Every structure is written in C-alpha cells, then in structure tokens.
C-alpha cells in the first residue's frame, strides 16, 4: 500500500531491533557530538537521526540501499530540503490535529467540529502527498536509487487525485450539495438501513419559483423546506450523520496517512541530517567515504586513514589516521603507551562501524568491514565515587547483561575492562570472557593494560588474533599510530609521570 520505505527496501524502522545498549554506544563513542552536528539545532531531526542510527543494518544489501539514496539526495539536495519542509509541515499539522482532538474531547464539543478537524487534517495530508509526488516526478530522470524510485512508483499507483475529490465532496456536505439516500422504516417507524447514493455539488441545483409551484401542486411526494426550521434542523442532522459516516470511512486512511508521514518524517530527517553533515565536512575538507560492507559472518577488516570523527567534528579538522589490515579479524588486542591514542583508535573504529551499519559514509579513505548483528561497547566508566570493589561488580554486571543480549556475529569493543582489580584477577576474568567470545564467533577488539593477558594470548597466537601497539618513539613521543607488534609490558605511564615531575620542577 502506501509506504515510504526510504530506509529499507520493504519496511520502515517499525519493529526493527536497535542495538541492545544504544545509550552505552552513544556515550562510549561520543556520538552525541555527531548527532548535534548532523541535526544542527533541529530537535525533531536530532531525535529521528538518533533513532535511525541506533538500529543497525545487518546485510550489505541494506547498507547499499541507503548509500544509493544518500547519493541521490546529496546530488539533489534542493528536493530533499523541500521534502523535509513537507515533513515538517505535516508534523506540525498532526500535532495541531491531535491537540484539537484532545481539547475537543475535553470540552465535549459538538461532533461536527471534531469531524471538521479530521476532514481538515485529511485534506492537508492528501495535498502534501500530491506535493511529494509532484516534487519527485519533476526530477524523475535524476533518481538512480531504488529507494526513491520505489516511493515515486508507489505514489503514482495510488488514486491520490480521486481520493482528494472525495474529500472535496465531503466538504460540500457542509457547504451545500444535493444528497440522495435509500432507506427503510424500522421498528418504531424510525429511519433504518439508510444508504447514501450520491452527492452532487450545489452548483447544479435550480431554485426557480416555477419549479416550486410544480412541486407543490403536481408532485405529491415532495416537500418544500422553505422556512420550516424544524425540518431544516433535522436535515442538518442527517447531513451530519452522513459526514460522520464518511469521516469514519476515512479513519483507516487517516491512520495510514499518519503512519506514512510518521515514517516519511523519520526517513527524510535522517537523510537531511546525513546530507547536511556531508556538505559541512566537505567545507572543512574532511574526507568521508562510502564504506564497503561485507556479509555478516565474514571476518576481514581493512581500512585506510581511519580517523576519529567526533574529534574531527569537535576540532573542525582531520586528526591522525590509521591504516590497518586485519585479515580474519576475530580478536584484536591493543596495548601500548598511555596517551598513545589507543582509546581514540578504538572509538574511530567503532564510530565507522556504526556509521557503516546505518548506511552513512565513514571517516576514512577506505573502509571495508563485515556487518555485525550486534555491537557492544564496554568502556571503563569515569571514576565515580564507588569503591573499586563496587566498580568491578558494576563492570561485571554490565558485561553480564551484554552477554544476555549477544547473538553470534556480534562485535564487542572493550576499553580497559576489568582494570579496577589487580592485574592477575583482571587478566583471568578477561581471558575467560575473550576465550568464550572467540569460541562463540564473536569479534572482539580490546584496549587493555592487562599485560599478562596480552602476553599469554600473544604467545599462543590463536588464529585470527591481532596485536596492535600504540607507537611511541624512543624519546617518548606519541605518534597516535597503531602498529602490529608484540605487547609491551609497560604502558610507559612513567613517561607521563615524568612530564608531571618535570613540570613541577620547572615551576620551581
């Protein structure tokens, strides 16, 4: 039927599963900065973008479907803006309509006014639909994506014009028309089984005096309404009942309109945010690339010049990028210098993965990775007032609820997990978890200071394991690059300590 389907080939986001812990992902990957930048100040848009982005696409086809639509809208951003204006208008109209209905109920207003509100909303929605169809049809040649072409086709298949005519006829019931009914007498001689046969606009009705004379004396079955107030009132009543039934008939259509615009608004908001964002990054000369999604269940991950987008947005320039090829990527451990960019790297990877899995371009020269069915982030949380004992249990509890939700082919991003206990205990806990994940086909990337853990796994070198180390030059300078290599037993935290000492010294 009437569906927008700009995000998925055959559905809306209705019923689609979001990430199990979207709030953790947003917080750990700093996505709020990104949302804000995409939506600018638009609250409606921000909310929709957030929702769409937190529902992962799980096949390359789904990703490509969106990439195509994004390309189309990027090229014809003028149309996109007009579509967004439609969505906004309709959003406002719906809110107004709902408010009216609510206040009508509260005030127990005459039925007619409720009916008129519904009729109004229907008319507006219908006009907006026709407008959308016109906008899309005008650029018919320009659309390459299946998504937009599909929407246009569906809109063209609908009898939109005819439905609009019926809505005009409904309005004519109030403004004046001729109506024909069939009915029977029921028990108590009440009107029963009344059926409406036709509605004719008022223009055609003659009211010559000759005709009235004819009716009065020749046709016995006719009654002139004239100035008969009671009769007029009853006929108004009949018209109202007719209108009520008419609007009732339109109820499912009205629901459909609401649903259509609900979906359409969400979809267009998302695309509007994406295109707006791309244009902005263009102006800052920050590269975004359409990634190459690989099927769920494959394991190769490769990227060039991958950088952390939230930082780029925040600093308004492109930070250091990493180029790494992780063949058969099943478990990656990142160790190395403090302040060496390990967390940033982990985050850059996570953000790119989230962007790819909602169809967006990613911050890299090239990015090719599988789509995962779920993504979990388990980052150590800023030191709160809890005792270390409580912190470990909080971490374990968080991990446990993630495990509850995990499905095969999930991606786990762990940042300094289990650092709140001794290295020995932490290593043991983490090892159990990593091995279980490995066994059960979860992909893990973990930033850790747990040297015992890293060393043990490095010596073992399980198939598909990778070991990255944050680069530190001889003199202690951090390059923020990740290199493949043996885990270091120190994270050179003493470097930092030294800097501190030095500064203290300098101050003296």
């Amino acid at each position, binding site marked *: 039927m009437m569906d927008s389907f700009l995000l998925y080939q055959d559905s809306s986001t209705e019923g689609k599963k979001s990430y199990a812990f979207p709030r953790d992902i947003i917080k750990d990957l700093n996505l709020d900065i990104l949302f804000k930048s995409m939506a600018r100040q638009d609250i409606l848009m921000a909310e929709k973008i957030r929702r769409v982005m937190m529902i992962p696409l799980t096949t390359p086809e789904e990703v490509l479907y969106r990439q195509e639509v994004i390309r189309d809208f990027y090229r014809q951003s003028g149309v996109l803006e007009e579509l967004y204006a439609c969505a906004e208008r309709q959003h406002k109209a719906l809110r107004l309509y709902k408010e009216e209905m609510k206040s009508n109920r509260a005030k127990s207003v005459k039925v007619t006014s409720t009916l008129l509100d519904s009729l109004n909303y229907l008319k507006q929605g219908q006009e907006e639909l026709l407008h959308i169809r016109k906008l899309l049809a005008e650029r018919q040649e320009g659309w390459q994506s299946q998504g937009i072409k599909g929407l246009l086709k569906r809109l063209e298949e609908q009898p939109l014009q005819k439905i609009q005519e019926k809505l005009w006829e409904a309005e004519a019931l109030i403004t004046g028309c001729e109506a024909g009914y069939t009915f029977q*007498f029921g028990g108590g001689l009440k009107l029963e089984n009344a059926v409406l046969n036709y509605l004719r606009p008022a223009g055609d009705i003659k009211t010559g005096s000759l005709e009235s004379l004819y009716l009065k004396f020749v046709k016995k079955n*006719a009654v002139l309404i004239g100035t008969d107030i009671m*009769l007029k009132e*009853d006929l108004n009543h009949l018209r109202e009942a007719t209108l009520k039934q008419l609007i009732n008939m339109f109820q499912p259509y009205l629901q459909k309109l609401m649903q259509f615009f609900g979906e359409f608004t969400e979809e267009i908001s998302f695309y509007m945010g994406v295109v707006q964002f791309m244009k902005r990054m263009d102006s800052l000369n920050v590269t975004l690339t359409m990634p190459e999604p690989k099927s769920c269940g494959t394991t190769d991950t490769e990227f060039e010049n991958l950088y952390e987008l939230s930082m780029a947005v925040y600093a308004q320039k492109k930070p250091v990028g990493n180029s790494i090829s992780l063949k058969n990527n099943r478990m990656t451990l990142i160790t190395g210098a403090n302040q060496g960019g390990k967390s940033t790297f982990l985050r850059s990877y996570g953000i790119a993965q989230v962007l790819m899995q909602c169809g967006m371009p990613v911050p890299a020269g090239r990015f090719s990775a599988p789509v995962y069915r779920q993504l979990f982030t388990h980052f150590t949380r800023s030191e709160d007032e809890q005792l270390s004992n409580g912190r470990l249990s909080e971490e374990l509890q968080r991990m446990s609820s993630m495990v509850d939700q995990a499905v095969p082919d999930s991606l786990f991003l762990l940042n300094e997990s289990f650092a709140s206990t001794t290295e020995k205990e932490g290593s043991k806990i983490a090892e159990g978890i990593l091995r279980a994940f490995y066994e059960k086909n979860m992909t893990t990337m973990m930033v850790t200071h747990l040297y015992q853990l890293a060393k043990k796994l490095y010596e073992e070198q399980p198939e598909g394991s990778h070991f990255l180390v944050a680069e530190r030059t001889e003199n202690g300078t951090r390059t923020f690059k990740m290199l493949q290599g043996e885990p270091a037993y120190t994270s050179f935290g003493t470097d930092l300590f030294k800097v501190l000492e030095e500064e203290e010294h300098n101050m003296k």
Partner: protein
Amino acid sequence: MQFRSILFADKEPELLTETPVFFHDLQLDYLLERILEPVKGYQTEKYYYTFPREEKLILFRQQVGKDMESEELCTVLRRFCHRLKESRKIYNYSLKSEGEMQAAAYHLQAASLYWEAVLELEKKLGGCSLESEGMLGLAGYVKQHLAELRERGFAAALKRADEFFSGLSFQLSVDTDKLMVEESVEFQKNYFEELAELLGQEPERTDTGIQDIFPEPLEPSYLEQVLVRLLKKSRPEVFREIKEFYKCFPVIYSDTLLRFEEEVQFYLSFQNFKLRTKAKGYSMTTPVISREQGFSGRGVYDIALVWKQEDSSYQVVANEFTMKNRPSFFVVTGPNQGGKTTFARSMGQAVYFTLMGLSVNAECFRTPLFQGISTHFEAEETLQSNSGKLKEEINRLIPMMAQNQNRCSFVILNELFTTATTHDAMIMGRKVMESFLRRECYGIYVTHIQELAEETEEIISLVAQLAPGEESRRTYRMLPMKAQGFGYSEALVKKFRLDYADIVRRLS
C-alpha cells in the same frame, strides 16, 4: 413435570437480597464482583446469596453446570439472552410510545425478534448434547411453547405483517430547499461502498450504512414524521397490517423463558469465571457431597488471592487437608503472614461454592452437606478500646452459637479474643469450639495460641510452614503436626534434605 426454573427445579424459594455476613470474610464480595462482570444488566447477585439447601437441588445444579461446560451451549444461551434482551428493549419502547402507530411498529419488531430468538434456541439446543435434567427440561419446554404460538396463529400473523413492512424501501433526495421521497424500485449505488473500494477497504468489512441518524427511539424526529405522512398517503395497507397484529397479540413473552433468561446468568457468569480461573493455571472441580467420606480437600487455594494477583507468574500456594468422618476442628498455628488466614478462607470458599451447587477452587474436594457457613474474623481496627473490642467479638459470637440453623454448619474462627490474656483466650476459645462441636459443626480455627491446638479426637493441629533453614521465608503450606513442632530442628532437617520425602526422592 413442567419445567419451571433452571436454578430451583420446581421450587419457589425465597431469594435473599442482602449480602450474607460471611461474604466479606471469605472475600466472596470481591469475587462476586469479578464473577458478575460479564452479566452486567442482570440482577444475578440474589442467586449467589441464596443457598439451595437440599442435596437434590445441589446435584441438579451440578448437572446443569456440567452441561454448561460445553462452549457451544454457552454460546447458544448467551445469544438467546442477548436477543431476548433486545426484544424486551424494543417491547419497552412500544409500551412507552405515545403514538399508536409507533407503538404498533415497535410491538411488531419486538415480536419478530422474540419469535426468531426462540426458534433459534430450539434449533440450536437440538444440536447440543444435553444431559442434565434442567437443560432437558428447558429444551422440552421450548418445543412446547413454539407449538402453542403456532397454534394461536401468532407465527403466521407475524410473518405477514413483517414481510409487508420490511419489503418496502424508499428513496430520499435532499438539496438546499426541498426533499423528495419515492418508493425505491431499482437498485441504487452505495456511495460508501464505492468509497471503500477507492480506499482499498473491503466493502463487506466496513459499515456502509448510516447509523443512528435520529437515535432517540421514542421521539420520532420531525423528518421521520414527515416521511411517514408521505408514506401513509401512498401505502395505507402496510399500516393497517401492523395495527392488526398489535391488536390481536398484545402479549408476546413466556414468563418461564423470561425467568430462565434471568436465572441462567448464574451459570453463564460462573462458567466464564471458571474458565478464566483455569486460564490462570488453577483447577476447578465438581465437589463430592457425602456424609460418609469425611471432609477433605487437595489442591485447595484462595481463589480471591488468585484474582487479586497482578503478577501472573506468581503461583498461589494450594494446600491439602483431611478430616475423618465426624465433626471436628482444624486448629491452625504458625508464623505471622504464614498463610493461615488464606488457608482458612480457601476452605470456606470451597464450602460455599459446594453449597451453591458450583465447582470449587480445588483439585479434589469432599464434604458432608453443611447447613450453612459461619465466619468470625477479627473486626477491622476501630477506635474502640480493647475491652470494647472483646465485647464486640463476643457479641458477634452469640448469634453464631445460638442460631439453630447452625447445626452442622461449617465454622471459620479467625484469631478470637486477641485482646484478652492468653490464658483467658485459651479457655474461651476451647469453650467456643466445644460448643460448635456439640452442634455437629465442622470448622477451622486460626490462632496464635498453641495450647488450643492440643490434639484430641476432634481437634487436628495444622502448622503453617517456613522454608527449611530460612526463617524469614514462608512457604504458605499447612502440614498436620504438633503445634510446638515447627521451628529450628525441622528446618535443619529440611535444609539437609533429610526428611522422609526427600530421602525417598534422593534414593530413587
């Protein structure tokens, strides 16, 4: 024997209209509200207040109740009642109509509805396999009643008038200054059907007529009067026929069927209640009434607690008990909040349902035929002083003990004399029990006073159990054991799974 009543066979009982005193204590008032929810509009309470008293009548009802377990039969009866109610409603309009013509038209409609309802009842009852004396009696009566109506020419006259009337159909056209009516000869388009098609709705599933144009049944609208006037001119014979029927058959209903409509609500409501209770996962069974087999139950649970339970995963605990074939008392002791009162209440509820001839809240229930139920629960906290409270308790006990009809009653005593000293309360309590035992009553006495639970031939001690080893957790189970026996040693045995049942299980 002529069929008279589905509740009292050939008796004419005095129906109680006031809530029996034990209702609140057993939370039957709450249950009755739930039970009667589906039969609103009928005065069914009185039937739940009045015991049938005779064993024969209880069995009569149990049989009917078994027939009512057929969903098919319930549907047939519900539908019959619904149609009869419709007919009565219309009949009422006829009585209240001011115009003779309108009264006659309503009368005809009511008669027609009644005739069809009874016809259908006869046909459908033939398709049900009935076994109870009550239902078979009804089926016989319906046949006989229909035969009578046919004999009196009711059916034929009805058919004539009705056909005449319902065969007429008119066309009405309205514009801004006139309206015209004609007898409808050819098929007219239905505007709403066309609209439904346009909107992609299935016309069969949408209501394409106009409803309730002039909803007031007793006040013909001005428009309706105008239309009738026009019609009278063109088809006077129709109106003659309607009046004729009205004069010849002023009375249309059978008193027996009207009474049946009222009484059968008792069974319909309870059957519904039973199904819903079963759907919650609890059994309901037909009790066995026997003088010889003693008083015993298995899987007896507090059905009010079940219905009050919002969390459907919580399973209300069921208990079992056995009393030999002689008037005796259970004395229940054990921890606070251990389920003692709930247990006593569940027993009382089962006795009540038995005496009503209904299914009971148990897996298995055997009971002598009690003559009534007496309960004595602690009064709600009031502002009375302690001595006032004791006095109030005794004041309530006096009529319970004095009433002659309490011979062989079922008695529930819940925490008597809590404001007296233990010694006094014990002596009084014992006397109260002895007194009831002399009247061949059976009963249950919930108390804190262990001495009252000292076992004799007529006193059986039950103890509310704690979870083994966990003195804070109640199991809500009652087991026959010495009142002093509950406590630590037993809990230890349970904890190590060393009691008889556990050892048997562990070894098998």
